[in-house]
């Protein structure tokens, strides 16, 4: 009988631009090396995962990262008293930094994590991508951070139009003129703050790779995927597992040279000369992580075992040509449940 462990998971917003939480939980539910009780951690009372009782045993609301680590820690201490958590898996870029900061304290409380180090988290940041590319010898498009619209006219000195206007954490728009850059600068900075990242647009085919690094330079898992159906927000609504040697080489190189610790997603583009560029490093598992389970590499399970300091053998094989096709689904929920999570912060 496998041991039962208590795992808290964030990112329960299974919406059109979904958080990875539900996909992570599905992987954990299918783990062969342990049995789980899943505790959901939600920010908003309408995150769909809160109401998915077949996947999540209990959900607690937690404060937004912007409120500071003290209030988050306080809330986690309360949850720990109730639930005796073994592992927490944060799944949002914006909450990773506070969780990385809190991880020693969480460890003292008996809660394990398996997150990138603070320097790994910082150096792969969109703002630092050119230096990251130089340091690790990875091809990246030219980019720079701008803090004011005054800098927009000068961009022609360094970039060719079109270019990509990106938010600090999320959102990206392709701009063909300085006027469009201005409009996207305002729109994205209002939502995610400053700086805005300007990146040279590379025309080509988008690829992604998810994986897991053990923090010592070893790749526990690598699963490359090609997006087949992309939403208006640029999210994959369908994708297929592929076997592209160059993506494996690039991803292995990334894990080895950075000694990456934890789950990640690399966003790549192949231009017309068949060269791969690294567009972004997402420092956590992606929303399509369940594809890794579907192809035979249960990354959420392996990540939990690494967090618990269990021996984890690298995966060596996976099924090529497996597709994921996302769908939306209307749940019927009693208003009492909504009242309960909204007023008590628990369900």
């Amino acid at each position: 009988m496998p041991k039962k462990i208590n795992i808290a998971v964030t990112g329960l917003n299974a919406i059109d631009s979904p958080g990875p939480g539900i996909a992570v939980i599905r992987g954990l539910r299918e783990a062969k090396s342990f049995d789980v009780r899943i505790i959901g951690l939600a920010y908003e009372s309408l995150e769909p995962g809160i109401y998915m009782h077949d996947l999540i045993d209990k959900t607690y609301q937690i404060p937004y990262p912007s409120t500071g680590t003290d209030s988050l820690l306080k809330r986690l201490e309360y949850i720990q008293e109730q639930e005796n958590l073994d592992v927490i898996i944060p799944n949002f870029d914006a909450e990773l930094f506070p969780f990385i900061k809190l991880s020693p304290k969480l460890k003292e409380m008996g809660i394990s994590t398996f997150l990138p180090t603070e320097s790994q988290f910082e150096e792969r940041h969109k703002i630092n991508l050119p230096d990251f590319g130089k340091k690790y010898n990875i091809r990246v498009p030219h980019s720079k951070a701008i803090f004011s619209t005054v800098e927009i006219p000068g961009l022609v000195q360094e970039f060719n139009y079109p270019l990509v206007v990106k938010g600090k954490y999320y959102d990206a728009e392709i701009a063909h003129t300085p006027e469009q850059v201005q409009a996207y600068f305002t729109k994205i900075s209002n939502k995610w703050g400053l700086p805005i990242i300007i990146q040279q647009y590379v025309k080509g085919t988008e690829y992604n790779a998810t994986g897991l690094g053990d923090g010592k330079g070893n790749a526990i898992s690598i699963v490359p995927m090609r997006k087949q159906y992309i939403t208006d927000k640029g999210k994959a609504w369908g994708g297929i597992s592929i076997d592209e040697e160059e993506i494996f080489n690039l991803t292995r190189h990334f894990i080895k040279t950075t000694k990456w610790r934890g789950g990640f997603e690399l966003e790549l583009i192949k231009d017309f000369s068949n060269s791969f560029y690294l567009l972004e490093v997402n420092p956590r598992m992606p929303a399509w992580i369940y594809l890794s389970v579907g192809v035979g590499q249960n990354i959420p399970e392996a990540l939990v075992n690494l967090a618990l300091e269990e021996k984890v053998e690298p995966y060596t094989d996976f099924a090529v040509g497996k597709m994921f096709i996302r769908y939306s689904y209307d749940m019927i929920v009693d208003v009492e449940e909504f009242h309960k999570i909204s007023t008590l912060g628990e369900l």
Partner: protein
Amino acid sequence: MKIKKNVAVSESGYIFNPSTGESFSVNPSGIEIFNMVKEQKSYEEISAHFLKKYNTDKDTFEKDYNDFIGMLNHYLLLEKDHAEEN
């Protein structure tokens, strides 16, 4: 000329390239040519097979064959060294 070793065509005519994740559909004649090229049959063997089996002439087949191989090349379904021969 050589088709990449991990590329195959299904009975229904779907070609899947596992490196790029792209799928293509070909008609029954396409399946036949694809499989014969995959088996490394020569152009002469393939041409003789088609001229015997179908109501076509040598020039038309040559043109169609070259178009088809050109498409395989364009979609990166041929081994690199062999793709450059075309």
